[in-house]
């Protein structure tokens, strides 16, 4: 997986009924590492992610998003949303097998792999349970296993951990970082500390229509970084001011 492709976005624009969400966005996401897309709530970072995943049918879009080898993103991107999107009528195992189920019938090899993935995310023994019986953290673990099951080189994450309590969030972030190692991950977040902790680099998105701050912030060291690292404290303040806090304070 060390050769996971990067993403190149040129002149991306998206508008809903004439209102520009973002405009003239250029972004180079290097392959095989974690990039974070940081922005205040409602700035359009989720929209940019959906643009890359080709999800928004109702918006007016222009520009290009391709892999750095020139191929399109279609079929290469897995998507993890804010909500875990587990289907309540399927067992945990069948939820992980959703992709194979949608593309035909899951083979025995798929079932074996799903069981291994559930073991890796710490849900061994819960295969037959319905999502209803799982805690919020366990549900996102199951969603993570489902994402891994798709085995796509690029993983786009839209604040999938934001609804979890702090301790659970820390654990599942570390787990995701471990299991997604080598893939191209773009994580959307509004939390500067999360971005500093998990990202090899952090892009800041701000303004209306939104623009990307270039170049990205590259914190020292490798993720997952310790949050009590004093070097991060300064960068944290830096990011907060970029997000617009400085202007509010002044």
């Amino acid at each position: 997986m060390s050769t996971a492709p990067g993403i190149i976005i040129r002149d991306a624009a998206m508008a809903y009924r004439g209102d520009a969400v973002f405009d003239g966005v250029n972004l180079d996401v290097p392959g095989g590492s974690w990039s974070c897309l940081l922005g205040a709530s409602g700035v359009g970072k989720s929209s940019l992610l959906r643009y890359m995943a080709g999800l928004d049918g109702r918006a007016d879009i222009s520009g290009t998003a391709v892999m750095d080898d020139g191929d399109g993103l279609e079929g290469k991107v897995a998507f993890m949303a804010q909500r875990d999107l587990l289907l309540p009528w399927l067992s945990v195992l069948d939820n992980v097998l959703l992709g194979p189920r949608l593309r035909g019938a899951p083979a025995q090899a798929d079932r074996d792999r799903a069981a291994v993935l559930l073991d890796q995310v710490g849900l061994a023994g819960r295969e037959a349970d319905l999502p209803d019986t799982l805690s919020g953290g366990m549900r996102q673990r199951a969603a993570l296993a489902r994402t891994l099951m798709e085995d796509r080189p690029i993983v786009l994450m839209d604040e999938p951990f934001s609804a979890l309590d702090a301790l659970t969030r820390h654990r599942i972030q570390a787990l995701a970082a471990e299991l997604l190692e080598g893939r191209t991950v773009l994580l959307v977040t509004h939390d500067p500390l999360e971005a500093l902790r998990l990202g090899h680099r952090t892009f800041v998105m701000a303004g209306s229509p939104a623009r990307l701050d270039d170049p990205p912030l590259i914190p020292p060291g490798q993720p997952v970084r310790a949050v009590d690292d004093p070097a991060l404290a300064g960068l944290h303040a830096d990011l907060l001011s970029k997000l617009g806090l400085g202007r509010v304070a002044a």
Partner: protein
Amino acid sequence: MTLNAMNLARPVIIALGLLAFWQGIVVVSEAPPYILPPPLAVLETLIERIGELLPHAGITALEILLGLGLGTLLGGASALLIASFRPARRWLMPVLVVSQALPVFALAPILTLWLGYGLASKVAMATLIIYFPVTSAFYDGLRRVPQGWLELAQNMGGSRTAILRQIRIPAAMPAFGSGLRVATAVAPIGAVVGEWVGSSHGLGYLMLHANARLQIDMMFAALLVLAVISLTVFYLVDWTLKRAIRWRPEG
């Protein structure tokens, strides 16, 4: 008393309460037996003439069940069609509304004229009355599938058919269930109205017949049997749905 025992005892208590209420009205109003027969007299008639009642009850039950099956099938298929194809929606929706705008009571004589005095016209009536609640509830369920599930399925490369089968239909099951419950509760209306308009069998026929001969206790006995049939069918459907759809839609 445990919760389970209470669940079993409740219908009995309700039934006894209604019977007591009935007896109370008889006593207070001093209504003559040919207007309101006391419950005991009706029970007596019921036991005495059960041999006569049961075959008619069987016919009515059959009409209700056939109507329920046919109406559910047609309703389910229509909802799938409307939800899957835009042109189908434009063409079928008005038909659906018309099927409800015309009261079944008004259609009963025509259906009897066309389909005869036998089973077919009653089943058609019951089907017609069941069709709409099933179709509209199921269609609604198919339309209201959370966008996130659909996007996830698209991202995973699911075809339209696969998404319909794996996501939309299961997601619409609770709505389908509520439609079917409503349909089950109203299904006997279709059958009985059909029997009133023209028939030689069934509880509706028996009631008209008894009414003409001023056998009011027989009318009430037939009504009791109809209530038992309706309740049994309803609880059977409810029980089956509860077991088939074990998950709850998320709030």
